[in-house]
């Protein structure tokens, strides 16, 4: 043993070297991610701050319908379009974020348990998952919404989350399958770790990169989904401004007062591009990080 690597044989660096940077930190060094993050943060800031800066109230009449009054003109009731856009993001944002979070949490739980449980567990969980998966997201939401007279924000969040969950579960199971068969998970089992701890401490931390990317992508879908539901008239408060609903309300005057439609379309598009760029950036980091 004497000629073995002694602690003194290598020149010891005085300080403890910093740990390997996390996925998020690596992503921060990437242009795609930082641009996406900047766009998203700016839009979130706009959604939060704008209602206080709006020139008119949410339902305040600013002039005749579809006129050129104000910065972006007025809509079908003569309400100021700019003010409506400034008010209309909050519900979409809140529902999208919470719906995505719920969908991710549910989906990851289902997918990881299926992958880790294996065998019959996997079969039963994933086949049930496939049943839910076979409904298009929007259809599932519509079926429920038509049965309810007036949806609340919570119901919308629940709908968005539940409709995301099976899709996330598919991905989570795929990623987890590659991890649960690795030796370090088997090593933890051989030590007799509790199953929940194996999942939480050994499996989940190694999935964060693809899951973060999926989360970003799901957020984009959520925005689209809620926008679409708003367009079809399903929103928590029909009177309140809502980007999706605005498109529906004003589309008849697209040729005379295009801003009433274009403005909400643009903010939704920018929001989607922002979150999508973020997801893309994380996905790239995740791919490269796999040594």
């Amino acid at each position, binding site marked *: *043993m004497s000629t*073995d690597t002694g602690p003194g044989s290598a020149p010891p660096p005085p300080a403890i070297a910093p740990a390997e940077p996390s996925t998020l930190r690596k992503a921060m060094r990437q242009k795609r991610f930082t641009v996406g993050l900047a766009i998203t943060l700016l839009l979130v800031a706009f959604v939060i701050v704008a209602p206080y800066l709006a020139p008119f109230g949410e339902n305040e009449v600013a002039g005749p319908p579809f006129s050129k009054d104000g910065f972006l003109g007025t809509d079908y009731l003569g309400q100021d379009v700019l003010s409506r856009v400034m008010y209309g993001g909050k519900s979409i944002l809140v529902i999208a974020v919470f719906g995505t979070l719920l969908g991710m949490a549910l989906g990851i739980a289902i997918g990881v348990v299926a992958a880790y449980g294996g065998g019959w567990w996997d079969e039963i969980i994933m086949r049930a998952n496939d049943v839910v998966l076979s409904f298009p997201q929007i259809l599932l939401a519509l079926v429920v919404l038509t049965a309810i007279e007036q949806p609340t924000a919570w119901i919308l969040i629940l709908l968005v989350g539940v409709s995301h969950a099976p899709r996330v579960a598919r991905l989570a199971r795929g990623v987890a399958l590659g991890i649960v068969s690795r030796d370090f998970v088997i090593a933890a089992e051989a*030590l007799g*770790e509790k199953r929940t701890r194996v999942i939480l401490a050994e499996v989940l931390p*190694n999935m964060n990169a693809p899951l973060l990317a999926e989360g970003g992508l799901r957020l984009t879908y959520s925005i689209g989904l809620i926008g679409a539901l708003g367009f079809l008239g399903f929103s928590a408060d029909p009177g309140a401004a809502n980007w999706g609903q605005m498109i529906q309300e004003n589309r008849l005057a697209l040729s005379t007062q295009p801003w009433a439609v274009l403005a909400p379309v643009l903010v939704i598009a920018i929001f989607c591009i922002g979150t999508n760029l973020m997801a893309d950036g994380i996905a790239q980091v995740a791919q490269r990080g796999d040594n």
Partner: protein
Amino acid sequence: MTATTQDTAAEKVPTGGLIVEDLGVMLTGRDVDVIDDIDLVLRPGEVVGLVGESGSGKTTVGTSLLGYARAGALISSGKVLIEGRDVLKMPWREVRGVRGEEIAYVPQDPASALNPSIRIGKQIVELLALRGIGTHESRMQGARDGLAEVGLPSDDEFLSRYAHQLSGGQVQRVALAMAFLPKPKVLVLDEPTTGLDVTTQAMVLETMAELCRTHGVSALYVTHDLAVVANIADRVAVMYAGQIVELGPKEAMFKHPSHPYTRALLDSIPHLSQARALTGIPGRTPAPGARPGGCRFHDRCSFAVTACAESVPELRPIAIDHDVRCIRADELGAWDISRGTVPDADPDKPREIILSVQGLNVFYGRKQVVYDVSFDLAKAEVVALVGESGSGKTTISRSVGGLHKDWTGTIAFEGDALAKSARQRSAANRKRLQYIFQNPYLSLNPRLTIEQIVKRPMELFGIASGKEATDRVVDLLDQVALGPRMLKYQASRLSGGERQRVAIARALAAEPDVLICDEITSALDVSVQGSIVALLEGLRQERGISMLFVTHNLALVRSIAARVEILQAGRVVEAGSVVTVMETPREEYTRTLLSKSPRID
């Protein structure tokens, strides 16, 4: 002197061989050398072994001969001359012609080099068509001849197989056949037998050597395995950190190795004929960009003096045809291959049985893979399970470790029968029996720090916690020769050898009585293997830990184990003390294994 001999040799036969002059490869965008100052001559019909550990640049040299550098690297200087033409200066169309037709390449993993969706016969015919060899009608026959030459069946059934329907050795021989068909003048083989069993390896090596002889092909055999080189090469080049540090005829290299690195490598290799106290090389192989100035080995060299760090030594001749890159080569003294030998483990030592396996049958679903295996393990004893892939050795160790639960029979710990899976066993039994995995790149959670990894078994088994546990982690890291600075590192920042030490430290943290070591050195370089074996031997002596050592390397068994179980197709064919089995094998299978194992002694 040597230079002139080489020149005349090259001039005498101007039609064959290959001359490499001052070859250098660097990383693009950064001024960092991967390899530099490589001078090498492949004479016609000669096999040159290029030996080096991971990160030494040996594969880079191999592919450079074909004028190829992997993405992110570029060939920055030098010449590769074949028949007086420089491969590196050729236009790319010409290089494409040279590759395969004049200089052929056999990759490390031919399974991934063959197209999985095209039948073997078609692939060979395609190759011939691409090279414009033969006519449409004669190519199929050409494919048959090529396969026959490497000792494979050449009937229609075989030709219509896909790559996945062949065994590892067969795939490798198909790759050899494809390399030889265009009748190249030079062959580059990149670790073609890594991952093959000893008997298959011996077969592939024989085929290769014979083809080289009959066709007068020069070959560069890139490998990390000095023992293989000792069996097939005419000359040997040893690489370290991107440079050739020693180059000479095989006999001279093994009788009078003159570079401290070559000697250290030889010291770390186990012999078949006698047990040895293996040693490793301190420190780790420097990566490109982090290599020290002066002699690149000086910071790990036990002969280093101040002058070593000052300038890069030249590769200079010390005997005919034998060059060394060391300023102190003349002062190192004589060398003896049998140095470091120790007496074999005493077969008559009294044994105090701690773990016994009786009538073990193991199944995968309906398929039985292990049949009625019985053996036992005494206190402070190492029992080796040896066999080729598919012999069931790892399956047995996993069943003993409770990682595979589909088995029948008895596995008893001091008379106390163990449950089938680790979860069903008592915490005390789990604690006393620790498993170390083959691949340290997979067995440590890349998200956790070394401290968390090593501390966990202590917390789990209630041995220590908090500050006390951290202190013990530091102690353990010290025992496995890792400094406390590793504590906050994540496993992904460590080298393979360092990771395996962490895995050993994690096993030791549970204060076990028995360690199950599943091929724990097969993914590591020989010098790292040497130091890991030295570490385990120390632990056995100091702590009285028993070990079940799974391996396919019989030479390693001789140095580490006291008893050995030879397995074939799930059955123990021969068992006994290491000396008895290896000196006087009774079974034909054992004799075959022993005779096919490459040896340097």
